[in-house]
């Protein structure tokens, strides 16, 4: 059996998705219209925490065009509690989470009542006619204060704001610390972030009276998981629910969720027997779509004078927000294994306490746990280097796993299959002109320049491709991590690939076409990739955690292999040869030694369709399905370098150059990989410098619109120099690793390290994210006067 030559994999194919996206031929959920469509609007709590004394919807019902209006109590019975699928500890506190609040509101934005009207304008007006009496309750707005004695409770029935404690240890950290020459202790803050996908959420439900079926269209990342959980939550049988994710305009984890609005729309469509639509506005999204990060990270590293890291201790306080959403408790735990990163050490201790606060619920946001881990370890490695007077690259080199040591099992228990940190770092240093920038930096210090130069280093790795179902089970995650693909070869030789992944910007249609085209030897244009509809792609685990290529893409490859195996039987029969004597290359079977005896896969497909002359006992189909459950994660890595100019007079930070060399294994489409890196790095820079959800002392979100929540645009971002090394993963036949989160994970510490590096001569050790001009200016000022850096 010979391998097919790669003609498509590795090519920067333009994306099949783009023509319709850039010409406005898109099918966003909000574009969907059906006869008799009614519109939902949701009244939300203006208070962070209050008792609901009375909800009166009668005045709203009197408005012309209003069909129905309900309080939480009116519909509580039919809606169940929103699911949390990842209670990480046995005694995790899981509060009841009604889609519409019944007795208490627990964050500003918590739904209180719902209106159904003939048009969205009437629905919006009707919200103002609903009367609600609240008795304000004390709000918990601070992660650190949430566990203090006598603090108000977010869920009084639970008796505590503690959601869970999680602990793991490997080696003896205290012993390592006792042997250390240097111990660096830091407290870092992960600010609260608002995911801000380009397309806000939307849902449409159309009931089919005759069969009792419901089709739910949603701007979601997880049509399959959503279908299961909608069935569990509402009691509507799973086979009566069809979920469709049409064109979805970004997610970044924020659409990896089972939202109250999806449940509300489904239940009310059933109750009213009418199709319903709900579309979120941007300011509604800022309070009602889950937020990300929000952790306090205590981290301590123990090292010898020569830089050898002996041990690491991490203790987290993780904000859950007001309720547990789908994966929330597991997010910090997903990062637990990543703090030791690429470094060898003998001891590691990790603990995390989840706490409830009266703010929008937290859940996955691009990277989900791993950016937090990478930030803390890469920040403290720079701080340790400063403490030891070492170059931060040299310190990393001294501690990282050398390429000849792979596979390597880390202190956190993960086995990294492959990597070459030396190669990626050397390439990055050379592209960046590291030594020359260090000279300029010293020069500016010598001249007491008001604009200082800082250099930030981040040598990251990540675990991606969620993935091994057994690992997920050990982590108390409710589902598995497999992915399904099926391939249908049509009579004319065209190919349909059905994937269980659910792309929302990633370009799976293009990449999966490239994989299938090579594996089957058919033209790229002959492959159609279908996804995102549970009726069509019946089997799937959807898209998140950089899993799609390493699980779903590999599943496509494996399904194609099965197709070729079946086709080989047919070809052998037609060519009157032994299967073992057939070569398969470029889409054709040939008999070894007589290349004129040849059947193309298209000919085999038609012969199978006609089925006039098939081998005895063979079913007339070469179609195949493959469900892949990988044994392990994949581990992309890379080196990101940032040079930042810091204006010490104003506090302004200007990124002058940014270089990254990433190793994401074998690359299917280099253009898509580069796009993922650009977007990821932009989001990482955004956390470092710009974005933060800010609340006032009463728990109202002050950054409620994009005028206050600052998302950087193209003019605010630097030119990015992206390059690659390619160390194939050994854990899958394509050698791929995943790239969806790499940029976000790597870039945040690179940028903050650069800012802090610029200001170390002023005695600055840390600046809280986002490093706003005012915070930078304050840090310079405090540094100059020898005071502690302010919060």
């Amino acid at each position, binding site marked *: 059996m010979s391998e097919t030559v790669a003609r498509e994999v590795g090519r920067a194919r333009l994306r099949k998705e783009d023509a319709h996206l850039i010409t406005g031929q898109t099918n966003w959920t909000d574009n969907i219209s059906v006869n008799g469509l009614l519109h939902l609007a949701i009244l939300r709590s203006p208070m962070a925490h209050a008792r609901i004394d009375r909800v009166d919807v009668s005045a709203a019902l009197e408005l012309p065009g209003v069909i129905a209006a309900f309080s939480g109590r009116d519909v509580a019975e039919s809606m169940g509690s929103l699911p949390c699928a990842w209670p990480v500890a046995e005694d995790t506190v899981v509060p009841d989470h009604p889609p519409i609040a019944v007795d208490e509101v627990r964050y500003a934005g918590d739904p209180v009542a719902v209106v159904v009207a003939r048009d*969205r*304008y009437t629905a919006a007006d009707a919200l103002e006619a609903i009367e609600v009496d609240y008795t304000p309750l004390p709000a918990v707005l601070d992660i650190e204060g949430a566990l203090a004695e006598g603090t108000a409770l977010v869920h009084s029935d639970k008796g505590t704001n503690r959601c869970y404690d999680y602990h793991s240890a490997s080696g003896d950290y205290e012993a390592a610390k006792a042997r250390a020459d240097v111990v660096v202790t830091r407290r870092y803050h992960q600010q609260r972030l608002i995911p801000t996908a380009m397309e806000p959420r939307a849902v449409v439900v159309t009931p089919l009276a005759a069969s009792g079926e419901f089709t739910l269209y949603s701007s979601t990342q997880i049509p399959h998981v959503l279908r299961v959980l909608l069935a569990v939550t509402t009691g509507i049988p799973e086979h009566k629910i069809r979920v469709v994710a049409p064109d979805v305009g970004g997610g970044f984890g924020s659409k990896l969720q089972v939202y109250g609005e999806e449940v509300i729309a489904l239940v009310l469509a059933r109750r009213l027997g009418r199709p319903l639509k709900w579309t979120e506005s941007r*300011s509604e999204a800022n309070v009602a779509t889950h937020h990300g990060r929000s952790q306090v990270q205590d981290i301590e590293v123990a090292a010898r004078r020569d830089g050898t890291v002996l041990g690491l201790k991490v203790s987290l306080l993780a904000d859950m927000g007001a309720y547990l959403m789908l994966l929330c408790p597991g997010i910090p735990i997903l990062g637990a294994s990543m703090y030791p990163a690429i470094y060898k050490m003998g001891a590691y201790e990790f603990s995390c306490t989840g706490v409830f606060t009266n703010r929008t619920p937290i859940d996955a946001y691009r990277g989900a746990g791993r950016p937090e881990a990478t930030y803390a370890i890469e920040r403290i490695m720079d701080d340790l280097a400063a403490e030891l007077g070492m170059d931060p690259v040299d310190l990393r080199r001294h501690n990282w796993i050398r390429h000849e040591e792979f596979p390597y099992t880390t202190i956190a228990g993960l086995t990294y299959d492959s990597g070459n940190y030396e190669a990626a770092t050397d390439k990055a240093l050379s592209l960046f002109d590291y030594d020359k920038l260090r000279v300029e930096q010293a020069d500016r210090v010598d001249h007491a320049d008001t604009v200082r130069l800082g250099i930030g280093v981040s040598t990251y790795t990540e675990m991606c491709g969620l993935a091994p179902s057994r690992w997920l089970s050990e982590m108390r995650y409710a589902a598995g991590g497999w992915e399904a693909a099926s391939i249908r070869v049509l009579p004319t030789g065209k190919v349909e690939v059905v994937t269980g992944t659910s792309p929302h910007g990633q370009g799976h249609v293009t990449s999966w076409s490239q994989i299938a085209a090579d594996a089957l030897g058919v033209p790229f244009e002959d492959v159609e990739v279908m996804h995102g509809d549970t009726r069509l792609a019946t089997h799937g685990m959807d898209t998140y955690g950089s899993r799609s290529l390493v699980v779903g893409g590999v599943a496509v490859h494996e399904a194609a292999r099965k197709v070729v195996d079946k086709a080989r039987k047919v070809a052998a029969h037609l060519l009157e040869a032994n299967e073992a004597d057939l070569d398969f290359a470029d889409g054709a079977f040939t008999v070894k030694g007589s290349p004129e005896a040849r059947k193309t896969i298209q000919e085999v497909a038609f012969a199978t369709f006609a089925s006039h002359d098939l081998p005895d006992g063979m079913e007339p189909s070469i179609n195949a399905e493959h469900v892949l459950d990988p044994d392990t994660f994949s581990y992309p890595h890379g080196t990101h370098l940032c040079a930042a100019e810091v204006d010490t007079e*104003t506090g302004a930070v200007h990124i002058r150059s940014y270089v990254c060399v990433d190793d994401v294994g074998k690359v299917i489409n280099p253009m898509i990989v580069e796009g993922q890196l650009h977007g990821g790095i932009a989001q990482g820079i955004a956390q470092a410098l710009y974005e933060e959800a800010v609340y006032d002392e009463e728990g109202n979100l002050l950054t409620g*619109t994009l*005028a*206050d929540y600052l998302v950087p*645009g193209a003019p605010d971002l630097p030119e990015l120099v992206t390059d690659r090394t390619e160390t194939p993963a050994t854990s899958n036949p394509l050698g791929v690793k995943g790239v969806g989160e790499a940029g976000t994970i790597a870039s945040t510490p690179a940028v903050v390290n650069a800012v802090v590096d610029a200001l170390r001569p002023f005695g600055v050790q840390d600046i809280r994210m986002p490093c706003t001009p*005012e915070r930078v200016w304050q840090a310079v000022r405090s540094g100059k006067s020898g005071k502690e850096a302010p919060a």
Partner: protein
Amino acid sequence: MIPPTFDYARPGSVDEAVRTLADAGEDAKVLAGGQSLLPLMRLRLAFPDLVVDVNRIPELRGVREDGDTLVIGAMTTHHDVIADPLVRRHAGLLAAATSTVADPAVRHRGTLGGSLAHADPAGDLPAVVLVMDGELVAQGPRGRRTIPAREFFVDYLQSALAADELLVEIRLPKADGWGFRYEKFHRVAQAWPIVGVAALVRRGDGHIAEARVGLTNMGTTPLRASATEEALSGAGDPDAVTQAAQQAAQGTRPTQDTSASPEYRAHLARVLTERAVLAAAGMG
């Protein structure tokens, strides 16, 4: 993001617009480029009963000369202001500041008059018109009146325009021979300035003969840094400018928001004033 119900009128002339406003009383709002009013309505922070759209009144657009004065129609878009050769020649400061407003989409819709009538102290253009000693011409049922910029900005989002008056044109004395600079400090390109400083400098023989400094977002209205202006008169070297700039925040009452504290704004006003004046004076 759905505004409450409102009525809509689209007059074809200034006279018709003024009559419409007079008939409507206090509950009408003029719609110019809509870049501030519509977001406020969509957030339900503004809820006029009547929106008077003045976009189809040709006489409100364009730039002309009137002797030593430049006359800019209130509905001239930011984009047209930046591109206009007369503005570039005689009011470079206005062109420079306008080119920093938001993004191209906003600049193609937003107008100079709309921006001034909105009277947002965080807007870039009020401080510019103030520092250029501009005049604003309003038309109402009782005819036209000319309001000096110093009297036009009354309070936060409040101008001297009466409810039945329409801003029709902006008159700027030509600033030929003046050096200029707009120093805008903002966190992202599309954001409002945390602080902005508009500087106009006329040089004498080796020194600053006259300097004017306008401050954006340092109070409830655009402000002039009068103490700094006085101190700059006769300044002959950068050190003197630095000294004078130390007084830039005198008498200001900047606000606190998610981007900056008053203390930091005052500091920025001093730093940016120094930079703006040095650049405008050609000493930078």
